[in-house]
């Protein structure tokens, strides 16, 4: 992929209010063909509303939606080149697995042979070969989810929408389905957009992450981007664990309440510095930290402590054998590479 491809999905000034309550503030978003895009945010941030507007179940209060160049804003869901996998699956209980999957195609009055072939192919794709004649109530949660997926995929939508697809599954199944979704996306090369509140899931699946909060898009970028270079305090805090340190900038020099100083260009005023826990390490020249607690997490060691400024600091260390360096109640000097920190201007909202 080179150059600037025309985005497959275009949202311009899209907004939705329910009476006086603003669910989605006017926002712009572009999703390119082949993207696996995650809309990530806490409950109530508007991500589901956004997804349902794209699907056509909610009429926007303002703005427009374009898919593949066509303005679909006024079209109902049955007329859009999108298909959705619902959070509660929405499988038709009175039809078999095969009939569920074939539903959309049979509405188009395609020839029986074509439908049967495509249903078989889609059952293979979601690894449910031979399940065609089964009744829905005899399926497990994971199997039901695959049927819901197959029912949407068989339609070959330009954009596949998934509403918290893995929320109802237990941990092991969730990881399994994550790999499945990844594989399917690779195999068919489609454009997927899914909504989740689970940051780990968003990162595992998506090539592009859209972080939302209170109806606004806080940041759009690759998982690395969003993690290493959070654009706002909300993103820094919501995505993974962080240490947030406050300070002031004067004449291009940042002075942290915790005691450090460094040069950083920008306007005068309050700033925050954000450092990821795995980038902090023991440093003889670092800030004195009172160790509050340590947790053995299996693959890593997590240490929480308090700085002289009263702010909390979180550290993750891969070397789990060094736990006894961090006795709770003792003081350890901690520091980090200036390249690892991220400066965010302004006060938090």
């Amino acid at each position, binding site marked *: 992929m080179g150059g600037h491809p025309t985005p497959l999905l275009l949202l311009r000034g899209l907004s939705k209010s329910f009476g006086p309550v603003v669910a989605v503030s006017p926002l712009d978003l572009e999703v390119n063909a082949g993207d696996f895009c995650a809309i990530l945010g806490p409950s109530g941030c508007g991500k589901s509303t956004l997804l349902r507007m794209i699907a056509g179940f909610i009429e926007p209060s303002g703005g427009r939606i374009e898919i593949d160049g066509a303005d679909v804003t006024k079209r109902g869901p049955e007329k859009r080149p999108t298909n959705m996998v619902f959070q509660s699956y*929405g499988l038709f209980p009175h039809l078999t697995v095969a009939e569920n999957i074939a539903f959309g195609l049979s509405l188009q009055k395609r020839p029986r042979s074509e439908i049967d072939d495509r249903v078989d192919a889609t059952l293979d794709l979601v690894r449910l070969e031979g399940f065609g004649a089964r009744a829905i109530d005899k399926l497990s949660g994971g199997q039901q989810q695959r049927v819901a997926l197959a029912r949407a995929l068989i*339609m070959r939508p330009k954009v596949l929408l998934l509403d918290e697809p893995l929320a109802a599954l237990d941990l092991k199944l969730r990881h399994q389905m994550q790999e499945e979704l990844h594989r399917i996306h690779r195999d068919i090369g489609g454009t997927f957009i899914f909504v989740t509140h689970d940051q780990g899931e968003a990162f595992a699946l998506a090539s592009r992450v859209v972080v939302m909060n209170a109806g606004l898009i806080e940041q759009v970028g690759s998982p690395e981007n969003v993690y290493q270079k959070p654009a706002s305090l909300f993103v820094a805090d919501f995505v993974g664990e962080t240490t947030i340190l406050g300070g002031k900038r004067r004449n291009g020099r940042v002075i942290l309440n915790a005691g450090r100083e460094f040069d950083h260009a920008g306007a005068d005023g309050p700033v925050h510095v954000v450092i990821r826990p795995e980038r902090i390490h023991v440093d003889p020249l670092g800030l004195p930290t009172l160790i509050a607690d340590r947790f053995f997490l299996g693959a890593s060691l997590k240490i929480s402590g308090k700085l002289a400024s009263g702010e909390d600091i979180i550290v993750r260390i891969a070397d789990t054998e060094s736990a006894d360096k961090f006795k709770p109640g003792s003081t350890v000097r901690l520091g980090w590479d200036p390249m690892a920190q991220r400066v965010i201007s302004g006060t938090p909202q």
Partner: protein
Amino acid sequence: MKRAGIMFLAPATLVFTAVFALPVALLFAVSFWSVKSFRLQPDFTFTAWQRFITQYWELTLYTLFVGLMAGIICTLLGFVFAYAARFKAGAHGDTLMLATLITLFGGYLVKIYAWKSILGADGLLNQTLMASGLVTEPLTFLIYSRGAVIVALVHFLLPFAILPIYAALRNVPDSTVEAASDLGANAFNTLTLVIIPQVRQGLFSAFAICFLLAAGDYVTPMLLGGTSGVMLGQFVLLEFSTNFNWPAGSALSFGLLFACMLLLAVLGLAGQMIARRKR
């Protein structure tokens, strides 16, 4: 634990046995008894049943017809209203059902009397039509006719259809409706392919209840049916109270009941066969 459970059911079962099961069994037995000079005596004869089959078969068919009509109309109208309350009324759906539930208690006799007053020759409807100049003479066919009986029956029985259909519709997940339209179905397709198949049981229950209650009614045709709107229930009453011919009354009752069950069974089977063929 099980013994305690069965004990708890004892009082209700006692009432059921003493006031329903035994009486009904006895009543059935009575249909084989005979009446000699106004005295009922135990016997085993088919006189009463013969009477039912030879003299009342036409009336039975007609009564079944009225019941069928009332049942079908109630189910159709009930579905429309329940659908509107479930899918188009938003948060008010349950309130509407509350209103419906309350009309259920609105008085059986009161309703029939109300229709008598509305449909009569000097009733409200005629008065309005004449006052507005649409007709010059009162319409007499409005009352003392089959139509009047069916209208009043539908009015009384409609809540009996609305409530179970609404309950069934509430069990239809919104996600199945949305999924249908997401896959390209318009409103009609969604209704026929996704919603109705899920509530088939509820629809048939509603129909069965309305049909049974309508077919067995005697007060409505008594007050509104005149001579052309006669139903079997009235003759059950006649044989029982006036003629003191209890065997005949009993045979008529059970005859009607069996006819109704037969019709329901046939319709139920037909419905299942149609549903299976559609696949």
